[in-house]
């Protein structure tokens, strides 16, 4: 190469600078395109991150949940709950599971002295704290002897404790739930997640803070609940095993209900994958939208470059006369085009990141910028310059020296 790359780039920047206003107008499309790439990617990334956090906070990717499938019809009138006997059968069929828990849900009034409030009640086994990765951080959680003896004990949700006891220590106190006297043995750890664009609540985990936990046996024997278990939660050894175990569980439960899909078996890992898939779709759709603006930007660049070639015909003639090869001319114009779009890309990235940082915060939307997006945006902008610069550059390099020198 007779003329070095760094030199061509320098010439490109010079050209950009001599025609500042035109160059700036030219790159608007590229700026908008790269800016939207940054904004979209960081939104999707933020969504993914939020999803993963949600999953982790609710028991992680190894969790499998078996619960009532509300969409299923039940023409055979099969039981819509599990019996303890069935639960034990299922448990024995999946020895590979790390933890196994069964839960009965209820909603009751909880009273202490003159205070009372409504709480979501969970009757459960001791594995609850392992499966949900959530336990008492004051006092203690339910132990197996509480279950064996159907003890009248309760672990309060954080908000329930606040509403009944305020700042007082509730441990050892007695609360009344449906005529049963229950001793408070602990308070569940406070759960919180920053909401992402959720206008209804500040904390999507508040329902957990309104949940109180009692032994499943107490729930069945003392609260007039039948032997009717709502939900099974299982923890596999790894997210990969969770997917295998989920299939196995599906078969078992299918068989228990004569082939009717009365229950849903869901693995958190699969859910996360599904959410990420839809996030990826979202990403692709928006990528197409931003490519439209990049396409328009590219056409504008091509147009301006063609005008520039026309304008600089004589210059091309002079350069050819003093020894520039056609490739030198081609490269000069191509690099100019790439420099223009690269500058557009840089401005786009800067504005995109600022939008993400400030507007994202203002709208309470979670976003995440990482270096890979910035590389993608810059790469795309350079690509647009390359692609749309080729035709004008070819045109410049194909000029005949004599005609170019004569051009007025």
């Amino acid at each position, binding site marked *: 190469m007779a003329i070095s790359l760094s030199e061509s780039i320098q010439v490109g920047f010079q050209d950009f600078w001599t025609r500042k206003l035109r160059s700036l107008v030219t790159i608007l499309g590229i700026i908008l395109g790269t800016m939207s790439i940054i904004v979209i990617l960081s939104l999707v990334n933020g969504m993914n991150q939020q999803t993963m956090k949600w999953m982790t906070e609710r028991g992680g990717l190894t969790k499998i949940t078996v619960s009532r499938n509300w969409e299923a019809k039940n023409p055979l009138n099969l039981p819509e709950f599990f019996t303890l006997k069935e639960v034990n059968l299922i448990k024995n069929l999946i020895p590979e599971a790390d933890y196994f828990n069964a839960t009965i849900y209820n909603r009751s009034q909880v009273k202490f002295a003159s205070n009372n409030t409504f709480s979501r009640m969970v009757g459960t086994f001791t594995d609850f704290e392992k499966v949900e990765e959530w336990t008492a951080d004051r006092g203690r959680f339910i132990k197996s002897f509480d279950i064996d003896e159907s003890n009248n004990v309760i672990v309060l949700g954080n908000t329930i404790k606040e509403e009944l006891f305020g700042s007082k220590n509730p441990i050892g106190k007695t609360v009344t739930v449906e005529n049963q006297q229950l001793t408070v043995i602990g308070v569940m750890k406070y759960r919180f997640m920053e909401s992402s664009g959720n206008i209804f609540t500040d904390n999507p985990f508040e329902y957990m803070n309104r949940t109180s936990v009692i032994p499943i046996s107490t729930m069945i024997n003392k609260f007039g609940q039948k032997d009717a278990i709502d939900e099974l939660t299982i923890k596999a050894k790894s997210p990969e095993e969770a997917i295998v175990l989920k299939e196995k569980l599906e078969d078992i439960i299918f068989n228990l209900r004569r082939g009717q899909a009365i229950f849903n078996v869901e693995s958190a890992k699969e859910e996360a994958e599904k959410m990420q898939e839809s996030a990826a779709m979202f990403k692709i759709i928006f990528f197409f939208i931003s490519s439209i603006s990049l396409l328009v930007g590219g056409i504008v660049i091509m147009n301006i470059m063609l005008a520039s070639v026309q304008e600089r015909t004589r210059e091309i*003639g*002079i*350069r050819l*006369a*003093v*020894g*520039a090869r056609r490739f030198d001319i081609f490269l000069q114009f191509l690099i100019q085009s790439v420099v223009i779009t690269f500058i557009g890309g840089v401005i786009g990235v800067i504005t995109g990141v600022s939008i993400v940082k400030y507007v994202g915060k203002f709208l309470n939307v979670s976003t995440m910028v990482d270096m890979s997006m910035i590389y993608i945006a810059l790469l795309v902008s350079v690509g647009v310059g390359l692609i749309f610069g080729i035709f004008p550059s070819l045109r410049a390099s194909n000029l005949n020296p*004599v005609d170019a020198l004569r051009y007025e």
Partner: protein
Amino acid sequence: MNYVIKTEDIKKVYHMGSVDVHALKSANIQIESGEFVSIMGPSGSGKSTLMHILGCLDSPSSGQYFLDNEEVSQFSKNKLAWIRNIKIGFVFQTFNLLPHLNILKNVELPLMYAGIHAGKRGKIASDLLDRLGLGDRLHHKPSELSGGQRQRVAIARAVINNPAIILADEPTGNLDSQSGSDILTIFKELHQEKNTIIMVTHDPHIAKIADRTITLKDGEVINGHISQ
């Protein structure tokens, strides 16, 4: 005899639609190394066509052109670009400097295309401009200079790669008489330094400073095609 330029029966035909225009009918010229030759002729006589072919900006339709003992008429476009860069220096009537570059960068241009390192180029170019009395104007744009100064810059650009021939196309045509004679003095000096100069002009007085004059008419060389 060592001819730096030797053409054999060069023809140039332009196809304008269905009409063929014979711009150059049969040119046989020989120019020795170190000669100062002027080319004269009325407009339309083929002067410019001949200049373009001699300057490797254009190729003949037929015939052979030996430049510095190389047959260049069938060279590829890249090879011709290299010839223009290394062996030919152009001086134009309208100077043809790049308006957005300072004069130093303008003079460096042929060095750049010759692949000479950036650091070295500035030194060579500024030394040469210094010799031509423009050492204090290196960073001026051509538009800030007088016509005579601009043509000196153009001459510097033409000779910077020590070309085999210097082609000047009416180099004083756009200058006042004082600047014009200054430029002619430079050409005379270049001639004394054994440079080969070919100058197109229509001014017989200017033609007189040349060793000989080639006269063209209607696309044919009618006089002075070989040195006497």
